[in-house]
């Protein structure tokens, strides 16, 4: 397939996915208001025990935003494949000459753009309110960090997408994955409260690296050293995702979809 054909195919898949997402404008609204509801609710709870200051709140707010986009990113590929299977289109899709990697990447890129858009829109008022114009300027590099940081999560999502082709109880799997990603994010609590081995797991996860890198920029601390960890994670988790998905897809193509 020529490169121009590949690009136009990629674009067509993206447009199709975007049209599906834009059918539910309420979903986009939730992406924007949810961090306020959750961070605000938790701040209200915490305020009964201690004094919550603005910096604490913004740290937690960014943390909840990172958790939310991470969960969505990890689930995107798996949810897409599950919907295709439920609609009876997965076998036909896999039988086409188009690589499933391209299909999954194009649909996920749309989700990356939506997530980053929601992150910027949701953060605008609170960052401007706390740091003024300089905060708004810092949102731009943080946006780039978020785009990069979603890539290793896409890798994890790819591995999950492979699992989803094999198993039927997708909702159950997603429930467990969501709670695990949330707890292991390290985005809303200090790491020293955890046992050492769990802290080590959290530091190795892209959610923590993404959170710390984004927060450092938003708070005016410059680029965090964890950015190198994030770069390494991007390569490692993408390889893991491609390898896992490839292995499972190969076996499914031989045996058929159950």
């Amino acid at each position, binding site marked *: 397939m020529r490169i121009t054909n590949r690009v136009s195919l990629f674009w067509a898949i993206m447009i199709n996915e975007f049209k599906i997402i834009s059918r*539910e*404008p*309420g*979903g986009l*609204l*939730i992406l924007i*208001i*949810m961090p306020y*509801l959750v961070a605000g*609710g*938790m*701040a209200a*709870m*915490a305020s*009964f*025990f*201690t*004094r*919550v200051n603005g910096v*604490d709140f913004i*740290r*937690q707010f960014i*943390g909840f935003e990172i958790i939310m986009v991470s969960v969505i990113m990890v689930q995107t590929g798996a949810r897409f494949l599950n919907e295709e299977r439920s609609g009876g289109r997965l076998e036909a899709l896999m039988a086409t000459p188009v690589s499933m990697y391209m299909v999954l990447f194009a649909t996920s890129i749309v989700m990356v753009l939506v997530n980053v858009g929601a992150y910027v829109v949701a953060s605008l008022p609170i960052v401007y309110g706390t740091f003024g114009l300089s905060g708004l300027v810092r949102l731009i590099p943080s946006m780039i960090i978020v785009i990069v940081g979603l890539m290793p999560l896409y890798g994890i999502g790819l591995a999950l997408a492979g699992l989803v082709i094999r198993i039927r*109880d997708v*909702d*159950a*799997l997603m*429930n*467990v994955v*969501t*709670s*695990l990603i*949330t*707890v292991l994010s390290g985005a*809303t*609590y*200090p790491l020293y*409260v*955890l046992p050492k081995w769990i802290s080590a797991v959290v530091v190795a996860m892209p959610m923590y690296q993404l959170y710390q890198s984004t927060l450092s920029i938003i708070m005016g601390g410059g680029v965090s050293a964890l950015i190198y960890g994030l770069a390494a994670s991007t390569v490692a988790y993408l390889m893991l995702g491609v390898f896992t998905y490839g292995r499972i897809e190969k076996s499914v193509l031989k045996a058929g979809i159950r």
Partner: protein
Amino acid sequence: MVGLRRVCLRLVLGKIVLEFERGVRVLFSKPAENIAFIISTPLWLAFFILTLRGYGVIKLSSVDLQLFLWVAYAFSLYTTWLWAFGHGIMDEGYDGVLEYILAGGEDLLTHFIGWGLSLVTYELMDLVVIAGSFAILFNTRVSLINPPLLALSLVLVTLELLFISVIYSMLVIKLRSNWVITNIIQFILPTLGGLIPGEVNNYVEAINKYSPIAYPVILMRESALGINEINVSITTQLAYSLFTILALGALAWVIVDITTARLRRSGQLSLY
């Protein structure tokens, strides 16, 4: 006349029991989902407490943990009823199940009540899992000062949430993105519904005291912990709770009646 009334009652109760049985079968037809729930609940609780730590809350007393246990349970009740039941009704509407029920000569409210009551099994599983998680994570044993009152309050909470979910689902079923509203309501309803203990501050105590839907949830906490949160006698709280449930039940009956008439007239419940 008396005999006829008994036959009618037996018929209605029989149908509710049938719906109850069907609901229980559906709930337990996917064991993987129940296992996932059992695994994820302690993780969510750990995350909640860790996040409080992130806000600078260093120490929680055993009373605080007990209160959190009942807050967690009340929140899970609201979530279960709004999502599993409320959205379940809407899904049945979109899939045409409600129209089939009507076409079979059945009553929608009977279907909702029977199916809703089957969620009691889920509620009890919720309580066991949350109590178990608190015991494992925080070494906190459930305090049960007044078990009969706790059982009664659970019945009251169940009936209240059943009717609220029916009313809610019938009102928003025609909206395109109703899950967005459910997400928002999931936070607003518990706040007005006694989720936050009155001990935390005077504003919350005032909300709990003057919000009629808060009483059953507060009773649940009071019966477990033996603390009178809002300085209102238990008898008065019970009376208010019963009155609220009766009012909600009547409202649910009227709204389901209107929906049924609309369904019979147009033959279509939703836009889908």
